[in-house]
Structures are given as structure tokens and as C-alpha cells.
């Protein structure tokens, strides 16, 4: 992906390229082009992440479609550059992962301290994980409402533009 672009607030915008797959009135549905987290674009190497992906939910690109307000009359098939605040990514990851984990570990620690039995600690941890996930859902809703997480439309992609500057595909 392109190097971070510093903005006035000091946070960086991560740019990504997506393709318009459907237009419904004022909302355009986009599919991200970067299919691997290896750092390379749709031309993935040996990672095994492709159109069908690793057979898991997250890797099927269709499952990662997202809506975008359609400002400039986008048409199906166009490639656009969207931006996400990089602080948003960290916040998202912390909400989704750190919250449940800490809840689980806290619950487990308390159970171990109180009873010292392995099976009980296991159950307590699962309970902690569950409640942590519920808390994460609440946190995610709050982030959603504040609009921090949504990608923003930046510009249309130039014809040969890929995720990497200097590696334009011809």
C-alpha cells in the first residue's frame, strides 16, 4: 500500500484500491483489491489467498464488500482509491481483540486465585471471553456511530495504478 500520508491532525490515511461491483442509487458497493496481507496486491504469490481464498469466510473477497456513498456518479467496474484513518485500524483491532482477551485473562486469573482448579479456570476464561466479545460489540457500535471506521472516497484510480507506487501495471 502507499506510504502514509500525514494530515493536519497528525494521523495518517491508509489508501487502498477497490472496484465498484454494484450501484444502488446513492450507495456504491465496493470490493477491495488487495487480497493478501503479505503486502502484495491482487497478484498474490504462494499465499493461497485468491478468489476463493483459503476456504474461510474472511478470505472470500465477496464477503468483504463494503458500501460507500456515491458522490461522483461511480459506475460498475470503476476502480477507486479509498482511505481509512490508520488510527481507526488500531482502535478497531484493539476493540475486537484486546478487550475479549483481557476480559478472559482477568476472569481466569480471578478463578485461579479463588479456586485453583484447572477446569474451573477454563470455564471462567470462556465466560470472560464471551463477555469480552459482547463488550467489543458495544465498543464497535460506538466507533461505527462516530463514523471512525468507514472508508472515505478519495479519488478515482488512475488506469495503471496499483497498491504500490512505482510498480504500475501496464
Amino acid at each position, binding site marked *: *500500500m502507499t506510504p502514509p500520508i500525514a494530515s493536519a491532525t497528525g494521523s495518517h490515511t491508509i489508501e487502498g484500491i477497490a472496484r465498484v461491483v454494484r450501484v444502488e442509487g446513492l450507495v456504491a458497493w465496493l470490493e477491495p483489491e488487495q487480497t493478501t496481507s*503479505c*503486502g*502484495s*496486491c491482487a497478484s498474490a*504469490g*504462494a499465499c*493461497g489467498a485468491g478468489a*476463493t481464498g*483459503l*476456504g474461510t469466510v474472511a478470505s472470500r473477497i465477496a464477503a468483504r464488500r463494503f458500501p460507500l456513498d456515491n458522490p461522483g456518479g461511480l459506475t460498475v467496474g470503476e476502480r477507486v482509491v479509498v482511505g481509512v484513518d490508520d488510527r481507526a485500524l488500531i482502535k478497531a483491532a484493539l476493540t475486537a481483540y484486546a478487550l475479549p482477551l483481557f476480559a478472559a485473562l482477568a476472569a481466569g486469573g480471578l478463578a485461579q486465585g479463588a479456586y485453583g482448579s484447572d477446569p474451573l479456570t477454563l470455564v471462567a476464561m470462556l465466560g470472560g471471553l464471551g463477555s469480552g466479545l459482547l463488550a467489543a460489540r458495544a465498543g464497535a457500535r460506538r466507533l461505527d456511530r462516530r463514523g471512525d471506521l468507514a472508508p472515505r472516497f478519495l479519488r478515482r484510480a488512475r488506469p495503471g495504478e496499483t497498491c*504500490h507506487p*512505482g*510498480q504500475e501495471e501496464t
Partner: protein
Amino acid sequence: MSTGQYKTIVKDGLWDNNGVFSMLLGMCPAMAMTTSATNGFGMGLATAVVMAASSLLVAAFRSRITQEIRIPVYILIVAAMVTLVDLAMNAWMHELYKVLGLFIPLIVSNCLPLARLEAFAAKSPVLPSFLDGLFMGLGFTIALTVIGAVREIIGSGTLFADASLLLGPAFKAMELRLLPADMGVLMMILPPGGFLATGLLVVAKRLLDLRAGKEIQMAGAHGVA
């Protein structure tokens, strides 16, 4: 398949498209298990056996494996082969088994077997796939042995030390001492040496490729200018 295509499989696997130096896959054992040439050799051979066997199986069943379940199936096949190799080494090559320890089961998560299964064995007949797996594995063995040799010679001055212990008495003749023990650079057999040796050897392979007039393979170079 023609002989030419077979020759390509052999050459690619052994050197041209070497798993470690060109494709940069299988880095974990390449740096962890190369504190000596013997360890690298043993690790490589274990991986080669797993790769050959799993490529054979995947190619044999490739028409039955659908797109959705292919990765879990590949992983299961590799895991089964790894279990067999693990048990066999525990029984018949116990010293080497103790040295390689964790990294035998970790062959399952080695990117190289999976990559070859996906890129080759899933689309090719049984014999070429078997050969591809075998020779990619042998190329991997060569790479690990070279890294291990470099680290061992600079780090402790020996070459193939403990070969007879780990591989069998027949290999006793391979044990050499090339430099006095106190001239060794200890860092080379410690973790930093693993990274350093691999990095410099990748550069060496690129130099060799350049001299032979071939394109440098910039695998994994994305994102770094």
C-alpha cells in the same frame, strides 16, 4: 510429459526456483535448524520426504478435492505425512529427532510444502508432482545444508560435526574441523547469525543469477523501495 519438462522440474526445484533462496519460503526452519550443516541436512531431508509424499497424494486425489476445502485437505495430508515422519525419526533416527525437536511437527506450517501443493500438485499428474515435491524438497535440503555449513564453519570451525551421531556411523568420514575452535565467531550460531547468513546467501544467489544472465527474482520485495 517430455524429458525437457522433467528437466525443468529438476532444475527449478534444486536451484533456479529454490524454495529458500528464490521463493523465500520455509524461512523458519532455514534459520532455526541451521546451527550446523548436519542439522540443516537432516531437517531438509525430513521436509523433502514430507513434500514428496504429500505431493504424490494430492496429485493422486486432485480431481476429488474441491476448491472450497482444498487448503484444509492439503494441511491434513501434510500433517499426516509429518506425523509419519515424526514417528519414524523418533524410532530410527533418535539423536537427530532430539536435535530437530519442535521443528519436525512444524513442517506442517512450513509455507513451502503448501505452496508447491497449491501451485503444482493440484494441477499436475502424479509423477511430475511427486518429482516436483521431491526436488523442491532436495533444493530445500541443499539450501539448509549450505546455510548450516556457512554458519558452522564461521561459528565453530567445524563442518558436519556430529554427522555420525545424528545420521549414522557411515557418515563419520564427513566430520571435519576446518578452523581452530577458538577462532569461531559465536554469533553465527546464535539467532542473529541465522538472519545474517540467510540474508547474505540470498544476495549471493542473486549475484550468481546476474552472472548467469538471468533476471533477479525479487520475491517478497514488495513494499520496500
